[in-house]
């Protein structure tokens, strides 16, 4: 269709985008809107459970809130480094684009590790998706908590892999494999890290398929789109943090 328009010189065949920007970015925005509804549904389900249960537990004492606050700081700082990566990409500065993206990944990885440690602590206290030690009449606390925060942690993990692919391309694949191997062989089988690290293996396979089937040099637009995804992950945490952690703070005891 487009070739025919070029051949006949009919410029009006190219209809400008309704949103005044390139289609890849509109595609990412539409995906993020649909993902908003996924997280919206999970947050509403959590709030529904909370409203309908007067005995909703408040298990998060000072240590957990401090941990979650540091995690929030990690995500907010990663958003800043990501936006600096986008600026560097627009300038055509490939070296700083990669450096800022790697720093973003470092903050994101810090968030994942802190969150997994928090999960380990809660599981150690006897919390499962089906019961919790603080309120026997509210079994759904564990289910809603793990689903909501697990879904978010999965998004952060996908985000780190996505950024790794954009920054390092094929060089990122062996790094992923090495990280998976180290974590898998150095942790016991019932450990949160041992189970969760398989997300990297799945990510490795998907990233390899993408990188080998469609090898390309990612440009400023690709960095900007990856940034949109990353900021969205940060955005969702801005609602999970107050709703799940701050509203269930245990001030005494």
């Amino acid at each position, binding site marked *: 269709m487009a070739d025919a328009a070029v051949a006949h010189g009919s410029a009006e065949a190219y209809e400008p985008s309704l*949103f*005044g*920007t*390139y289609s890849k970015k509109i595609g990412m925005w539409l995906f993020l809107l649909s993902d908003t509804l996924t997280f*919206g549904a999970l947050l509403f389900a959590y709030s529904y459970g909370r409203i309908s249960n007067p005995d909703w537990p408040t298990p998060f004492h000072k240590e957990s809130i401090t941990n979650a606050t540091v995690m929030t700081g990690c995500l*907010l700082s990663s958003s800043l480094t990501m936006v600096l990566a986008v600026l560097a990409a*627009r300038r055509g500065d490939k070296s700083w684009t990669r450096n800022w993206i790697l720093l973003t990944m470092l903050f994101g990885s810090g968030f994942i590790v802190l969150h997994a440690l928090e999960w380990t602590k809660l599981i150690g206290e006897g919390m499962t998706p089906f019961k919790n030690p603080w309120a026997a009449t509210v079994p759904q606390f564990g289910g809603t908590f793990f689903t909501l925060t697990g879904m978010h942690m999965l998004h952060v993990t996908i985000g780190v892999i996505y950024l790794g692919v954009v920054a390092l391309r094929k060089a990122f694949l062996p790094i992923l494999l090495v990280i998976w191997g180290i974590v898998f062989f150095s942790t016991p089988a019932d450990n949160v890290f041992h189970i969760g690290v398989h997300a990297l293996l799945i990510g490795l396979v998907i990233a390899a398929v993408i990188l080998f089937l469609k090898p390309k040099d990612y440009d400023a637009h690709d960095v900007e789109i990856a940034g949109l995804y990353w900021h969205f992950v940060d955005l969702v945490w*801005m*609602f999970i943090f*107050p709703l799940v952690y701050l509203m269930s703070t245990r001030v005494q005891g």
Partner: protein
Amino acid sequence: MHTVAAHHDEGKSQYLWVWVVLLLLTAVEVALAYKQVFQPVQMLEALMVLSVIKSALIIGWFMHLKYEIAAMKWVMMTAVCACLCLMCIFFADAFRILQLGVR
């Protein structure tokens, strides 16, 4: 090809300011939770207002929606807000369980 870069300067300072404000708002949220300044319902309202402000900063500056054209801003934000508001319909049932003691 159109890029948002054409519409605004590449200054880093505005992003640094947004980051500082986001960190400060987070500190206010944590302080509110720890000092138990409000009753739970007022606390929820205060935290949600702060979260909406933080989201607006992230969407506007970090996600660059501020620099997109009006059609993009209105279509994207109206759609997501309308859909999220529609989900509130379920809360009536949660209150029914709480108020009527339905098991």
